[in-house]
């Protein structure tokens, strides 16, 4: 699945031993993907490869993080991997939706790649439908986290210190039986599947998600990436950390073209 950019060279670019894999779930508002765009763009990460997969809708365009004429002509496709060895960070960006019936296959292939590339942990950025919140969730922070048991042992204490809120479980049969609780992440795409599979495979995974709705999700992306930063400290936390994140050039024209002058 993973194809390194370094054809024939030493596979330094595909050995991510001890790295943290940061990736998005394709979820409501595409918040995870937008947040990942901010990370890649701000940290000026280098592309080290891509996923050759039939699970995602194909797409191609020119470099979405282009800053000048010279670097704007590199092709970019639907699933690419970027790395920043100085922070032991490897990032997967997913740019198109899943093809029907391929979620399971993608999750399996992804997790086996995580194991074979020896990443130490996975951080999944996601989101969930805001309209599905219960009364208590409507108050307070819209950000939540989840940790697999293996990661809980390592960083559970840190989450307490940061005063983070764990994603609540909901009743499996609401109204009938309130004792059996299950994890429910509506609008989260493959989040729940990846999380439960990681739990059973002993992979250290953290899920960071935000409750949101479809619309202008740029502020949601900023909120999520700042949340992530509280933990991983990818950039220095300042009074106004939001302004530290660099918006990529591909975010231009998210809401349409210019207006025709004839309209006025």
């Amino acid at each position, binding site marked *: 699945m993973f194809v390194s950019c370094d054809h024939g060279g030493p596979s330094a670019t595909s050995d991510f031993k001890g790295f943290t894999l940061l990736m998005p779930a394709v979820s409501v508002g595409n918040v995870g993907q937008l947040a990942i765009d901010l990370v890649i763009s701000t940290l000026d990460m280098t592309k080290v490869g891509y996923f050759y997969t039939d699970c995602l809708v*194909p*797409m191609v*365009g020119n470099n979405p993080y282009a800053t000048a004429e010279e670097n704007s002509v590199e092709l970019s496709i639907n699933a690419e991997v970027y790395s920043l060895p100085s922070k032991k960070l490897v990032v997967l960006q997913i740019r198109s939706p*899943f093809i029907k019936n391929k*979620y399971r296959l993608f999750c399996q292939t992804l997790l086996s790649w995580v194991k074979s590339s020896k990443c130490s942990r996975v951080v999944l950025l996601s989101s969930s439908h805001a309209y599905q919140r219960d009364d208590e969730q409507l108050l307070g922070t819209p950000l939540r986290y989840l940790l697999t048991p293996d990661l809980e042992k390592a960083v559970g204490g840190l989450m307490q210190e940061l005063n983070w809120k764990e994603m609540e479980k909901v009743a499996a049969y609401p109204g009938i039986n309130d004792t059996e609780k299950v994890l429910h992440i509506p609008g989260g795409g493959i989040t729940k599947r990846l999380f439960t599979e990681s739990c059973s495979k002993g992979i250290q995974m953290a899920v960071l998600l935000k409750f949101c709705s479809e619309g202008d999700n740029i502020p949601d992306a900023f909120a999520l990436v700042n949340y992530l930063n509280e933990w991983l400290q990818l950039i220095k936390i300042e009074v106004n950390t939001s302004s530290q994140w660099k918006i990529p050039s591909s975010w231009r024209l998210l809401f349409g073209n210019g207006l025709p002058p004839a309209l006025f």
Partner: protein
Amino acid sequence: MATFFGEVVVAPSRAGVDDEESAEEGCEETPEDRDIRRELEKKREVDVRWTLKSGMRTESSADELFVCSKFILAIGHNAAAFLSSFILDSVCWEVVGAVKLWNEWCRTSSTTNVLPTDSFCLFYRLISDPTVWLCQCSCYVAEDQQFQWLEKVFGCMRKEGLQVTILSTCPVADYKTQESTLTLPSPFLKALKTKEFKEEVCCPLLEQPNIVRDLPAA
């Protein structure tokens, strides 16, 4: 979902269709589900058939890869029509293969003597230089068939020394630009190229944030 005037929304949510909920709700497939799924998959299989010089129809064997130096693919009705009008003729070009497929949008025609309004996917070879190939693909290849199409067609070709050119069209309304598309002189050409393509491109490159999707992207 919130959208702007002129955006054609394909899915109810930008995050994709939410039926992954039912797919992942813990329960594995029943044997009946599996059978139904397999039947559907068989129906949606992409079938590539090559016609040899002698006119015999046969599958290409795994060992014989076609040697191809230039492969021009025209995807969509407009691009296919361009090739029909300006390039193809029965004197210089011969039909060497066809793709048969079915999806909710189209079923390919079963003959090679097609009308411009048919849905078809045919391969031609230049008689004077059999390493130059053309493909006219006016049928819509669905999302789940695109990868299969790609693997089955290119799987039969030698990749060394192969130059691929893809011709396709998109509505001007989909083009993202600072000005309004009403004032743009259309039609206009844009290109994408891999870094291995060293020749000069005859038109400007496609600017961000525009993208290409479906079969041309695959």
